[in-house]
């Protein structure tokens, strides 16, 4: 199956003009499958962390959202321990006008602004709600522990 023009274009642009702190490159054997790294945003508990994600563009893309998952363990109320992400644009708020780049930027933003009111990992969310600082400390620890490539 040939790759839609749009995916080719997006890929080209991701490579030629990457968003700051974000890298995405398709697998050679499956151009719909991307290895993604996102740098933890400054000022967040995830700062200096390098998070690995996988991103897959389904057949329906761009009518359907891409499937994205954290491969690096992360302590975040909207990301469960399997790496699944709770983000509206990846679900009902998806729009075909969104792109890989915008999705990844949104995920990066999510790291800066966790939303415990709409949790996926309920225990993490509870922790964030009850004691945000302690929760951020755990997040920092996990970042150190799992997302530190140094």
């Amino acid at each position, binding site marked *: 199956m040939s790759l*839609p*023009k*749009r995916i080719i*274009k*997006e890929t080209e642009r991701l490579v030629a003009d990457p968003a700051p702190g974000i890298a995405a490159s398709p697998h050679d054997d499956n151009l719909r499958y991307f290895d993604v790294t996102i740098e933890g945003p400054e000022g967040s508990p995830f700062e200096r962390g390098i998070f690995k994600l996988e991103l897959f563009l389904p057949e*329906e893309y*761009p*009518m*359907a959202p891409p499937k994205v998952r954290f491969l690096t363990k992360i302590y975040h109320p909207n990301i469960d321990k399997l790496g699944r992400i709770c983000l509206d644009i990846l679900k*009902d*708020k998806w*729009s*075909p*006008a*969104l*792109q890989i780049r915008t999705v990844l930027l949104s995920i990066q933003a999510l790291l800066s602004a966790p939303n415990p009111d709409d949790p996926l990992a309920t225990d993490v969310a509870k922790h964030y709600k009850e004691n945000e600082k302690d929760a951020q400390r755990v997040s920092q620890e996990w970042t150190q522990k799992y997302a530190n490539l140094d």
Partner: protein
Amino acid sequence: MTDTGNSEHPPSGLFFAGSDDEETDVVMDEHEMAASSSRASSPRSSLFLADSDEDDIAFDDLPLTPPVSKKRLVPQQDDSDNDVEIQHLHPPMTRQTSNIKAIHSGEGAPLLLDATIEPTVPPNKKRRLSATHPPSAAFPPTYLGEIMVPNAWSNVSGKGYVKPNDPIQILREEQAQNKPGPSKALGKKKGDNKKQMSLTAMLKVQPAKPLKKKKNDNIVRILNNRGFEFGRLPIEVSWWISKLLDLGIVEFRGVMTDCPDKLSTGASLFVTLHAYILSSAFKPPTINSYSEEPPNYMFNEGIEILDEQTLRERKESLLKLFDVIGLKPQAGANIGGRQAEEKFHEEGLRHLATRKSKKVTEIVGDGEEIEVDDAEDLTENDIDTIYKRAQHNDRTMGVMEPADTFTLTLRGYQKQALLWMYSLESGKTDVRESASMHPLWSQYVFPEKPSLHGEPIDLTADEIPFYMNSYSGEMSLEFPKAERPCRGGILADGNIFINPDELILADYQYSVGMGKTIMLSALIQTSSPYPSDLEAKSSKAPPKPRQLKLGKDLRTNVRRKAIQPPSATLIVAPTSLLSQWSEEIQRSSKLGTVDVLVWHGQNRLDLDAAIDEKDEGEKSIKVVITSYGVLASEHAKWEKSVSTKSAIFEIEWLRVVLDEAHSCKSRTSKTAKAVYALRARRRWAVTGTPIVNKLEDLYSLLKFLNFKPWSDFAFFRSFITLPFLAHDPKAIEIVQVILESVLLRREKNMLDIDGNKIVELPSKEVAIEELEFSPLERKIYDSIYISAKRNFENLNAKGLVSKNYTHILAMLMRLRRAVLHPSLVLTPDDERILSSKNDGVVDISDVLRQFAIDNAQDGYKNKFAEDVLANLADAGVSECPICLDAMEVPMIIPGCMHQCCKDCILAHLSSCEDRGEQPRCPTCSCGPIKQRDLLEVVRRKNGPHVLSSSQELQPNITLRRNDFHSSTKLEALVRDLRQLRDQDPYFRAVVFSQFTGFLDLIQVVLEREYFEHYRFDGSMDIKKKNTAVTEFRSPSTKPKVLIVSLKAGGVGLNLTMANYVFMMDCWWNAATENQAIDRVHRIGQEKTVYVKHFIIAHTVETRILQIQKRKTAIVKEAFRGSGTQGAVTDPESIENLKIMFGDD
């Protein structure tokens, strides 16, 4: 000679009286007796007839009697040499047709060779009578053949009457003569004076004889050479020999082959008869020819008048004679693959036998309905056979250049047609090489006379042919040429029968244009009135005898006062073709040389004035074009009242041309009657189907052409229709010969003299594009299909398929519409079906409603239009946020003015619907948005080098509400048309569909795409149709599209200005589709024709193709509408239905 006769009178009379006594003595020396009576009786006969003109002849006969008479007759032998001369002198004698034949040598020296003829003593009366036979042709009695009669019988007893090898006479005897003296007693009673008396009496009553033509007996007597009757022929030969003798057209010279020494009554006699045809046989029979029969012939058809009986007997007897002597025709009506024909006929007739006669209503003329009996229908094979003969010389026919006012170039075969028509009009000889024999005649050859006494046979002698009309019994020595009394003919070019293998409906035939209009236009310009026409023929009576209408006839004369030779041409054509004729004629002629008037509609001009107007001075050729409808109604008015004048029937036209002449094929229709009433010098019937399905179709054309004698219906019926119905293969052959002289018919795929196709058309490229449904269309289609399939399977399981045939067809029809566009199946009916049992139906129903075109919310004012236009103008081509590609067809989302490709946004909307979400703007999530609110940005692509002022004024970007739901097929059409527009900014395309509902949708799409488009369908009146075609044809710098209903494409429609064809759906048989394509792919087409056929994959359409490929007939009833009462039908159709509903 007369002197001689007179001077000898008394002695010969005495002598004769004496000889009578001698004759009673049968043992008397026969030879001397014969000689003496010969000498005696001949002069005497002259004497008796001294007051009549014939005595010379009577006398002349004498020398012809063999040399025994040398003593006295030497001087007369000289006369015999002059026979011919003398014979001329007495032509009036023809009227006296003898009833009695004698064995006497006739008026020709050659007969003297017949040494078997002994000096005979023909009784005077006989000789004299024989002399009255018309000698004018200088035609000697000529040997025809020999008949053995083994069972003649004697009616006398005694010795000496006859012995083997004696010549005998074969005679009829007048009843009147025999009455006074019993003829039987003649030979028996010796010394009876009655014989002499009777002879005398006989001679005296002679003048009255011709009156007693009819004899009721058929006794044929055998006389010995002394004139004594001694026997008779048996009834099985005498019945016809007697007729021939009575008619005086054949004489028999006999030889006694075997007989007993002594005769006794009833004794068997073996006689050999030699038949000699007399010159009188080649005279026309006494009664008039058929064409002169009174017109009321039809009313007493059943009664055989005396003359007819005579003729019939003549015919029967002659044929019997020919049969007995084994004389066979060598050419003509009975010749020519008779066996094959008979076989073919047997088949044809078996057909006829099994065919049930039913009344069928046909439409003729302009919608006139007639009832016809279809029992005489012909199969296509019949019709083909009929045409064959008329075509076989056409390849080698010469050509003729048109007049210089003709502006087009004719093709070779068109030039041939011109020559053919021209020569028919000018009455010149046949341009076809072979001269046909008249269809009713057969050619015979006189047989060699058997050499009885060892004379050398003249091997160098030419075979002398003679001819006989085996229908009327007429005979002739001249070659009976097939007559062509009418000036004109039938131009039947261009009807091709598709190879039956390609046919779905077996009897489907279609015609394609070969430029008949152009050929006739060339004729009109080339064949002006001839001098012969200009001569005093103008006073000619109307061709058709009408009821006398004094007032009208007078008026006619007054109106046409100055005997103007007719010069105008009248063309009668179906209403839909009037303007085509007019345009074609004008197109093919230099400006001002042809004056065309379309005489149609409410405000018809005064024809007379129009025709007369320019008679003086100007030399333009006048052509009036009218329709069958107008003609019929004018005729009705004209017939009804004397006071109504109708110039069209009063003008004598130079030429009348009937286009699609089969419109008047029923002779009783009003149209046909009107056509017959036209007065014209030259008549042409133009039709692709001169014989639609029965021989009588042809009659009407022949009647119009005034092609005598076939234009007499009784004649046509008795010689063609009835023989055909009676399994007589002659019928076909007669028709063939008629057609050979009057019909020109070539086919598109015929080859010319060089072996090239006579018509070279540019190639035709047909592509079938298989399209995929959109998911929504698929859903809709599948739901309908599944319910139809279940329905069918239920019926099939119960064996009710044939009973519900029409119902099933209706279901199929819906499927075929669903393939085109879902809205075509959205009717209340459908919803009822959909709402039945199966699951998911309600959903579909909702979907369907969503699909409906919503025109209710009009007047949407787009407040963003200006901004958007400004934006668009600046932005140029922008990128679609969804596909990241340049937007081909941008759509604007009202409210946020974000844009996407049309395809992308529609895909987005439908995927939202699939998920049950409210669709929003993909860019900003504003909304919800509705599909019909979307605004499409339409950019006009101007032609690269054309910027007309009008185009500059138009904004080249406009917006349009997306309130129209397209469909896969429509999109494909639009896509192709757009591509075409890019490649060829002036293209002309024709789009066919069989559903007018779909035509509506196509129109909407074209409208939205700013394609100039025209429509042609059956519901439009003639004016609108004409306008559509004319405007489509008119040159323009813009592309044009004509959408045509498949069925209304109709006859003659010429769309060669287009070379792209789109077939939006498929018809059950490929022939109909091809016919439609041939509107474009026909004479006049100069470019390659591209045909695109849209098919949706995995639908009924693919199965229809399958059926087309099966080359089997799906029942006609099916597609003629629901006329059948459900009682079907052949297994084949059901088989086809199973394919339709089968599993892939």
